[in-house]
């Protein structure tokens, strides 16, 4: 498995175990479109998330920060969500040192 293939698998695991279950609580969802060779992750909100006024917050805290914690992920974009770099930097600053994990990633669960 190449480094890129491994990264894609890890991103899919994080989405499946750390992100999707939380979005599902409110009838939302997310689809992975692409992970570039440079580690840029492109996603799409689905279901209730698409028409939610708080999707920018969900993106910043619930999606971006979780994925950015993984080595190799360099950027995270969700189609139709745009916030300023100021806002992203603020989230990174305030949540620096805090874990976003709500449970073990899928692969860790299977190996434990």
């Amino acid at each position, binding site marked *: 498995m190449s480094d890129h293939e491994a990264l894609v698998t890890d991103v899919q695991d994080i989405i499946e175990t750390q992100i999707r279950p939380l979005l599902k609580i409110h009838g939302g969802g997310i689809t992975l479109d692409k992970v570039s060779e440079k580690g840029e992750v492109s996603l799409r909100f689905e279901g209730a998330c698409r028409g939610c006024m708080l999707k920018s917050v969900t993106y910043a805290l619930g999606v971006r920060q979780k994925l950015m914690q993984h080595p190799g992920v360099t950027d995270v974009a969700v189609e139709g969500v745009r*916030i300023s770099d*100021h*806002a992203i930097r603020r989230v990174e600053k305030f949540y620096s040192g805090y874990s976003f994990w709500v449970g073990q990633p899928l692969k860790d669960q299977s190996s434990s």
Partner: protein
Amino acid sequence: MIRDDVFVFDNVVHMYDYSDENLVSEQSEYDRHYHVSKVLRRRRTAPTDVYANWHPVEGFKRRWSVEDMGRLVFEDSGTDMAMAQAVPLFDLYKDGFAPVKAQYAFAQAFPERCLFCGAVDPMYPSVAAACEEMERQVKEWGAKSMKIYNAHVDGKSWACDDPEIAYPLYEKGRELGIEVFQFHKGNPITRAKLRDLSPLDIEGAALDFPDLLFGIHHLAVPYFEEVVWMANRYENVFLVLSGIGHTPMVAPRTFTEWMGRLLRDVGSERVLWGSEMALLGNAKPVIEWIWEMEIPESMQDDYGYPQITEEDKRNILGLNQARIFGVDVEAKKQELWSGAAR
């Protein structure tokens, strides 16, 4: 076109008829006075401008001519294409605030640059008659969209999600291939109640007719919060900057805050430029202002608003309208501006 390649497609210009002959009653004069005077401070004229030859209020109390409008819109304002929209205010003006036939005449005079947006009202005189008239405007006059004004001063206001009154219009439009309905919301310009101009009645229609597009004009101010939520939730709702597009001339920060909010929560793909020419005068200064505008650092920091990009501005000023109405922008640019035509 501005900056030599920015395609400007104005969602809404009006061939107004503010003539005495078009007033329904003496009371209509109060509404007309409001229409022609409220925008004085936002209207720009220059000493050499033909429009300044008229008294700023009295000069507008007339029936606009195709020649005047053609010069204003297509020669002086940097606008490549426009949609001439009728306004069915039959409670105040016998033939409407912007008569259907006058918009058609303008579109006919500039067939390569102007689309015709018809208008009907199911209360004047009936739902059946409105559907019949819609069919005539589409089949005989080539209407590409329908303009709706549901708030009136004579007790005939109706709701845009009324299954008995409104839905037959959308069904008829669907049958005729009209996919875009546009609504005057907020921004009362008559004595009609502001409550009747709430945009919340678009929600049910947008849900029940997902194959149609619902355009909300004037950002429905003061119902801005409501339309942002609705456009965020329903992808078949788009917002038009008509009426409030000249706000930067008076309150640039207010306009910039609106734009930042729209970029963050709706996206530039569903925000359309609309000038309301001729009422607010030549729109070129505002078009130029929008092209130069930026979301200041303070708003990016305080609200998380993204910086507006050149792509956003192109979308808003013309590309969105072109996409919605199937205009090939590159072909149109070639048609309009190749050779000496410019």
